[in-house]
């Protein structure tokens, strides 16, 4: 009986805490009071759903969805995987949105200050909807590492940002995908806001030779896990308080 009960409590020790001084911007943007526990109500166990009909044919191809005169520069890659819940059930029909820097580590954004070149054929955003088995797939170029203002010489490892809806607003999640074998993962103040090493490793995509597009693109596999639900129907729970 999926999609019936309330969600398992979020493991806040697995997620980064709000206040992480090594990531300086978090210092003034972190609540100081404890979060107030809210038993799921209908407002949290429902959520918006976006159908395949909304998705354009190039939305999951960052190599083509912005290009005007030829392909973007960079290592062509496929990113694929599944969206599952904590019960290991596929999350079907959920919208994934992703954004990233170009192969040189430069974002197409007016506040970006890195000197690396913009790529006229790369926008840096894409989206897709998972299929019945929770699978997704998109094509892009591998993003470069980039420097950012935090310490005087802090660099982000190559990464792709992911936004996932799930089926309920309580599952809403934004995270980042890193690349297998990148030593910079272990030097990053943002990665290290997560204190559990296995929680970080869960965000590192594996090189997947079986999913490559021969003579076209390398492949990385990145599974995403969203919160799971109890199997007991929500309505039958006795009222607390």
């Amino acid at each position, binding site marked *: 009986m999926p999609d019936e009960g309330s969600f398992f409590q979020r493991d806040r020790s697995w997620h980064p805490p709000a206040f992480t001084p090594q*990531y300086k911007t978090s210092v003034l943007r*972190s*609540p100081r*009071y404890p979060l*107030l*526990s809210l038993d*799921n109500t209908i407002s949290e166990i429902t959520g918006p759903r976006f159908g395949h009909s909304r998705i354009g044919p190039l939305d999951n191809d960052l190599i083509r969805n912005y290009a005007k005169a030829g392909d973007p520069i960079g290592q062509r890659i496929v990113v694929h995987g599944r969206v599952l819940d904590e019960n290991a059930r596929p999350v079907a029909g959920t919208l994934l949105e992703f954004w990233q820097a170009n192969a040189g580590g430069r974002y197409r954004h007016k506040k970006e200050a890195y000197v690396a070149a913009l790529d006229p054929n790369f926008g840096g955003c894409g989206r897709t909807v998972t299929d019945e088995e929770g699978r997704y797939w998109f094509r892009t170029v591998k993003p470069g590492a980039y420097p950012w203002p935090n310490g005087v010489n802090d660099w982000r490892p190559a990464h792709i940002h992911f936004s996932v809806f799930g089926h309920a607003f309580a599952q809403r999640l934004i995270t*980042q995908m890193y690349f297998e074998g990148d030593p910079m993962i272990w030097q990053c103040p943002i990665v290290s806001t997560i204190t559990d090493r296995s929680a970080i490793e869960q965000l590192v995509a594996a090189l997947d030779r079986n999913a490559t597009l021969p003579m076209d693109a390398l492949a990385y596999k990145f599974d995403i896990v969203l919160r799971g639900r109890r199997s007991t129907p929500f309505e039958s729970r006795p009222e607390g308080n």
Partner: protein
Amino acid sequence: MVQKLDALKESASQTAGPYVHIGLTPNWADIGGVYSEDLGRTMVDPRATGERIVVKGSIFDGSGTPLKDALIEIWQADASGLHNSPLEKRGEADPHFTGWGRQPTDGVSGEYRFETIKPGRVPHKGGRLMAPHITFWIVARGINIGLHTRMYFADEEAANAECPVLARIEHKTRIPTLMARRAEENGSAVYTFDIRLQGEGETIFFDV
């Protein structure tokens, strides 16, 4: 040793970063031609029922500075208290109202603005009605995991007084941080809901 549990762990959150708009509101971020319209920009179809309202405000950091790079999503019931979601089991929500909106805070002023409708009341478990409210989810550079809060309507005094969620808040002095004030602008209702991440008047955030 004991047997391992089968449960997977939720993927850990990471900050949306300063360039969240590239992915979530690309047209607003001057990346045109990829999507026809930014998702969540329009919530209300002209045929939707209910009172049209504007919800606006700012998000302040611990120094009192408004965030100019944040992104807010809201989620709410329609005028009759139903959600436009396949998981809404109590009835069919108004098909002309999405219930979900997404807006950036302005890059110069820091203000956000949603054009929506006033939500109806939604039952808590056990059936007692909650006061009308809008769920907010806030992400930005420096926010490591999205912040959930709720906006309530200050002029709904009777409903607020019997809301089971508000009733559970131990520190009653903090309840006003969840209340939006109503005003009229050019003949339409505008609710102002400012969010304070830290410091005096810190908004109540929920672990949902």
